[in-house]
């Protein structure tokens, strides 16, 4: 379970998050939507402290962190209970696909090498890369790299996986294979928070949709509620802008 309470974040004088409350149950897939600059990335990065929130409280599982008083150990705890899939993949470029996945298991979780290897191979097979274990990131396509990124997160068995626009750096023809993998692991009951502009995906896969604008949550609800009967004017406008006409006619 993840619970955010009153998260705020300012960069200098620019307050980017203005008090975010969010509750995510175990096994839930939450999609965050919102226009560019609304603070979606910043919110995700605050959850694992890649950005230090100015104020608020973060709870992941049994770790409770008060942002004003967070120490090194608190931050490490949050990071070890979460994992992140980046827009730019950020695979360790001097390590093979297998080594990328093993790294966290061996170095952070201190698991024996053999066990870590077995688990990593298993996860890479799950994302369809069983034949690319020894490939370096530079030898993989964007879609393959992102699937390694997902495997790296998944292998750690975190309480939550954070996805920041996992497909928006990909060529259109590679988006499908990555979404397919995310769909598959969503079905296995992994808790996920996903920032995405893929509306079809958001509609099919999520249990809960959050619409952000200007650093606040404007509206949230089931995909049905948000996509079919949004209440707030800003949500309606956003959906109208982002959803191509033809998708209504299908």
């Amino acid at each position, binding site marked *: 379970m993840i619970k955010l309470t009153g998260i705020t974040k300012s960069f200098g004088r620019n307050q980017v998050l203005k008090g975010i409350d969010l509750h995510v149950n175990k096994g839930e897939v939450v999609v965050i939507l919102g226009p560019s600059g609304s603070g979606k990335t910043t919110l995700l990065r605050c959850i*694992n*402290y*890649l950005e230090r929130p100015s104020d608020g409280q973060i709870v992941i599982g049994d770790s409770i962190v008060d942002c004003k008083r967070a120490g*090194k150990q608190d931050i*490490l705890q949050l*990071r*070890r209970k*979460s*994992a*992140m899939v*980046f827009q*730019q993949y*950020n*695979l*360790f*470029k*001097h*390590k093979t696909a297998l080594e990328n996945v093993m*790294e*966290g298991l061996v*170095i*952070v*979780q201190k698991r024996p090498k053999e066990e870590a290897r077995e688990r990593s191979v298993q996860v890479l097979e799950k994302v369809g890369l069983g034949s690319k274990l020894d490939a*370096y*990131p*530079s*030898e*993989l*396509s*964007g879609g393959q790299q992102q699937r390694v990124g997902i495997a*790296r*997160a998944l292998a*750690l068995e975190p309480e939550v996986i954070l996805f920041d626009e996992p497909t928006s750096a990909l060529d259109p023809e590679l988006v499908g294979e990555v979404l397919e993998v995310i769909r598959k692991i969503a079905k296995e009951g992994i808790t996920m928070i996903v920032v995405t502009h893929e509306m079809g995906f958001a509609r099919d896969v999520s249990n809960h949709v959050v619409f952000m604008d200007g650093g606040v949550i404007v509206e949230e609800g089931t995909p049905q509620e948000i996509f079919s009967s949004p209440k707030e004017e800003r949500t309606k406008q956003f959906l109208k802008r982002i959803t191509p006409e033809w998708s209504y006619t299908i």
Partner: protein
Amino acid sequence: MKLDVSFLLDVFPLLLSALPTTLLITAVSVSVGFVIGVVIASIRIYRVPYLYPIAVSYVTFIRGTPMLTHLFLIYFGLPLLVDGLASFAGLSFRAASIPLIWFAFISFSIMAGAYMSEVVRSGLLAVNRGQTEAAYAIGMNTWQALRRIVFPQAFATSLPILSNSVIGMLHGSTLAFTVSVVDINAKAQIVATTNWKFFEAYIAAAIIFWGLTIAIERITGHIEKRINRYNRGGVA
């Protein structure tokens, strides 16, 4: 004047007897310098309070003064310091008992540290921020992220320039003769004083240095190829 080829050939084994000294000075100053360089570069990049200005002054001072001057500063300054400290602490140790080669080790290491810190720093800066973030995101602490992710990539990027530093130190080690350490070059001079065939002796020295330089280039080229295996693909 005629070149005495047979003397030239005879001189090689004599000069090679000083090879260990040359290699030792180079190896010590490069290794100690590398460690200093990594520490200084990290202090500067992470802007460690209090140490940061010291690191910056160190680098600008060393890079702003000649290598020979450092050697003399250490040669004349260190004994004063050591003797002062020893008598203050009531020890009978005197600087006169420090082997001369140590002055070369110390001053060249300090110098190599300053130059190499710049090389290491540019290597560290070349590592993409996303690499560190990914390391933190999987739960690594700062030290783990540096050791496992940042340093290896920085090292791979810096290797060609580091190889230049090693070559620079090899050639620079000849200055040690000014504090009476007999390296290959000094040996050439000593050997030649008996018959005044300086030219032959220095040709031999030059050939040895040239060979060593080529060897260094080969070795680092080989290491480079091995650790840069990950860069060979086409897509970024």
